[in-house]
């Protein structure tokens, strides 16, 4: 009796295996069909008007906020990165209103344009806008109008249109600066520095208190968690 295996433990017959594999193939085909049928091929929806009012907040190059602010929030970002867009549209405005406008925190942009050529072009233009202390306005406008990655959405026409809507930004100077060797070199240096620093992706945030070494923040999913981290830093 002990020598007899129960029927359920015998290996399946060839017919059962063939049928099971046929079911597998059918399931895979169905999965692919469903995947193609349900695919959402639209790009991000553009947001027509600014989500944050930056008027009256000091800007110097890549830094937004009072130079004497004790805490610095550093963001490594790629203008094509959807997660950076989500931060810019959904978290950043509350952070500005609660921390930057009142001079407690300043925030620094560090480009990490790793996704593709649109990233690098957008990076050059925001850096060029930084030469006129308008980096944060152009960055915000580009995020609102972000297109599908690497599909050439960072066109001169889009840049000209968005730049033209930013009060005080000299559009001709912006284009000239964006094409300059100096800005191109700064953009590439930023990329290699971020790579060398082992930045794992974008956005990546660091907090710096005074002149102390910056420490990395876990990517905040909402403004409340980032606010809690900034409150800690302001107390520290």
């Amino acid at each position, binding site marked *: 009796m002990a020598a007899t*295996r129960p029927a*359920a*433990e*015998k*290996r*399946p017959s060839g017919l*059962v*295996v063939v049928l*099971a*594999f046929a*079911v*597998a*193939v059918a*399931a*895979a*085909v169905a*999965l*692919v069909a*469903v*995947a193609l049928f*349900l*695919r*959402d*091929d*639209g790009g991000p929806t553009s947001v027509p008007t600014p989500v944050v009012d930056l008027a009256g907040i000091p800007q110097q190059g890549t830094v937004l906020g009072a130079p004497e602010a004790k805490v610095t929030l550093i963001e490594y970002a*790629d203008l*094509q*990165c*959807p*997660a*950076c867009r*989500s*931060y810019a549209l959904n978290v950043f405005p509350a952070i500005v209103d609660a921390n930057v406008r009142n001079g407690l925190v300043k925030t620094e942009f560090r480009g990490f344009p*790793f*996704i*593709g050529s649109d*990233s690098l072009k957008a990076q050059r233009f925001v850096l060029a806008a930084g030469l006129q202390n308008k980096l944060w306005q152009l960055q915000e406008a580009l995020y609102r109008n972000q297109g599908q*990655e*690497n599909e050439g959405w960072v066109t001169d026409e889009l840049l000209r249109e968005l730049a033209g809507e930013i009060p005080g930004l000299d559009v001709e100077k912006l284009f000239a600066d964006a094409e300059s060797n100096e800005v191109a070199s700064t953009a590439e240096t930023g990329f290699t520095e971020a790579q060398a620093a082992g*930045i*794992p*992706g*974008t*956005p*990546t945030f660091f907090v710096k208190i005074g002149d102390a070494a910056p420490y990395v923040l876990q*990517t905040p*999913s909402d403004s409340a968690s980032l606010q809690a981290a900034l409150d800690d830093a302001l107390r520290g």
Partner: protein
Amino acid sequence: MSDRALRIAAAVVALGGLGVAGYLTWAHFADTSVICLSGGGCETVQESSYSEIAGIPVAALGVAAYAAILALVAWDTPAARLAAAVIALVGLLFSGYLLVLQLFVIDALCVWCVANDVVIAPALAVLTSLRLRTNA
């Protein structure tokens, strides 16, 4: 190759798949862009419109499939072996589709995805299929 060795190999490969798919799923939900070892392919692939099915990231489907295969390898009845092989075959075919998308449609390769599509999914399909030839 003994059945024991096949079983251990299948479990190890499934764990590897779970790791890769788990990482990609985490990156998806953490709203962090994944960085590639070279270029920006991972980000392009991971954020493309092909990376989700009805809002479910394909990486999460991978996690579910690998977890199911691991459980079936542990359970190890003939029916469980057959189910593991069927899931692995579905995974292999779907991985082939994803690889074709990366090569010819999205025009970007994600090393994490390729590791799954070219190494892990085929290995698991072979290992689980070979085990159907041995008795429990």
